[in-house]
C-alpha cells in the first residue's frame, strides 16, 4: 500500500486543525460554556427587559463580570433575571442592577453599580435595587404627552447608553 506515516500525520493535523476551528466557533464566537453556571448566582427583578436576552453581558464599570443565565416570570409577573457572576467578587447588598444599551442598535446588557453597605451579597440572594430598560417608544410617548417644555418632560430617566 502507498500508505505512508507522513500522510497519516498530515491527516491527523488536518483533523485537529478542523476540530480547533469547530471549537473556536463554538466556544470563542458562539459563547458555548462548557461549565454550567458558576458558583455565584444572583437574582434581579425588572419591570421591563427591553430585549435583554440570556447570555447578555453583566458589566461593572464597563468590565464584563458574567452573563445572564436565564430569564423567567415571577409571581407578580415581573421579569426575574438570573445573573451568573464571576465568583470571588465582593458586592454589597445595596448594589443596583440596570439594563443598558450598547450603542444605538446595540444589544442590552446589565450594568451593576456597587453600593456602600458592609454586608455582602451571597449566591442565591436578590439584588433589590433595579432599573428597568429604557424603551424608546415609551420615552417618545412621555415626551409627546408631557407637552410644553421638552427638557422637563424627558429628564426623568437618568442613565442611558450613549447613542
Amino acid at each position: 500500500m502507498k500508505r505512508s506515516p507522513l500522510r497519516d500525520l498530515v491527516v491527523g493535523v488536518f483533523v485537529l486543525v478542523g476540530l480547533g476551528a469547530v471549537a473556536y466557533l463554538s466556544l470563542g464566537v458562539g459563547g458555548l460554556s462548557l461549565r454550567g453556571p458558576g458558583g455565584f448566582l444572583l437574582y434581579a427583578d425588572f419591570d421591563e427587559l427591553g430585549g435583554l436576552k440570556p447570555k447578555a453581558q453583566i458589566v461593572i464599570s464597563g468590565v464584563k463580570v458574567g452573563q445572564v443565565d436565564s430569564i423567567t416570570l415571577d409571581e407578580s409577573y415581573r421579569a426575574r433575571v438570573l445573573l451568573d457572576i464571576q465568583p470571588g467578587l465582593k458586592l454589597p447588598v445595596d448594589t443596583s442592577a440596570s439594563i443598558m444599551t450598547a450603542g444605538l442598535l446595540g444589544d442590552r446588557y446589565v450594568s451593576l453599580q456597587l453600593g456602600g453597605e458592609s454586608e455582602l451579597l451571597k449566591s442565591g440572594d436578590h439584588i433589590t435595587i433595579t432599573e428597568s430598560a429604557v424603551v424608546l417608544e415609551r420615552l417618545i410617548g412621555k415626551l409627546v404627552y408631557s407637552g410644553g417644555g421638552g427638557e422637563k418632560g424627558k429628564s426623568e430617566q437618568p442613565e442611558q447608553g450613549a447613542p
Partner: protein
Amino acid sequence: MTLVRDLGWAVIRFVADLGRLTVFGLRILRVALVPPVRVGRFVDELFKLGVLSLLVICVCGLAVGMVLGLQGYNTLVRFGAEQSLGAVVGLSLIRELGPVLTALLATGRAGSATTAEIGTMVATEQLDALRMMSVDPVDLVVTPRAAAMVCVMPLLSALFIVCGLFGGYAVGVGLMGVDPGAYMGSLRSSVDFHDDVLGSFLKALVFGVLVGLIATYRGYTATPTSAGVGSATTATVVVGSVSILIFDYFITALWGV
C-alpha cells in the same frame, strides 16, 4: 399528449432513482456499521477529500469574508451601524455561506473526483474483479469515501468560516477602520451557539451525507464507457449542488423554529 406522458415518465424515473439512491445509502450504512472497518482506506480518503481541498476552501473562505466585510461595511455605514460589521460577517458566514459554499466547492472538487474514480473502476471491470474475489465493492471502495465525505464536511466548513471571519476582519478593521473591539464584540454577542453555530454544523453534516451519497452512487452506477463516466461526473456536480441548496432551505426553516 406526449408531453404529459414524457413528463410523467420523467417523474417516475426520478422517484425510482431516488429510491435506488436510498437503498444504496442504507447499504453503505450497513457496511459501515458492521466490522471490520477499513481504517486505512478511510484515512486515505480523508486525505484526498479533506487535506487536498484545504487550499481551495481557505482561499475561497478568505475571499468571501473579505467581500462580506466590504459589502457589509458599505451598507451598514449608511445607518451609522458599521461597528456591528462583525455581527453581519459572522452571522452570514456561520448560518449560510460557510456550510453552503463549502459544500458546493467540495461537490465540484472532491465529489466529481470521487465519481470519476469509481466510475472508471466500473468501466475497467475493477469492481467486477473485486466481486469475483469475494470482496464487496461497497465495502472496499464506496463506504470509505462516503464516510470520509461526511466527516470532512463540518471540518472544512468550520475552516471556511474562520478564514472568512479573518477576511472580514482584515477588510473591516484593517481597511475600513472599524474598531477591532467592536468587530469582535458584536461578533461574539450576536452569534449564539444553539441557534447559529449548531445549525451550521448540522447543515454541513447533512451536506456531507448528500454529497458523499450522490458522488459514490453516480460513480457506482455509471455506464462503463468514458462518456458514461463523464456524464456521471457532471450529474454529481449538478444534482449535488441543487440538492444542497434545496436542503439548505428546509434545514434553515426547520432549525430556526
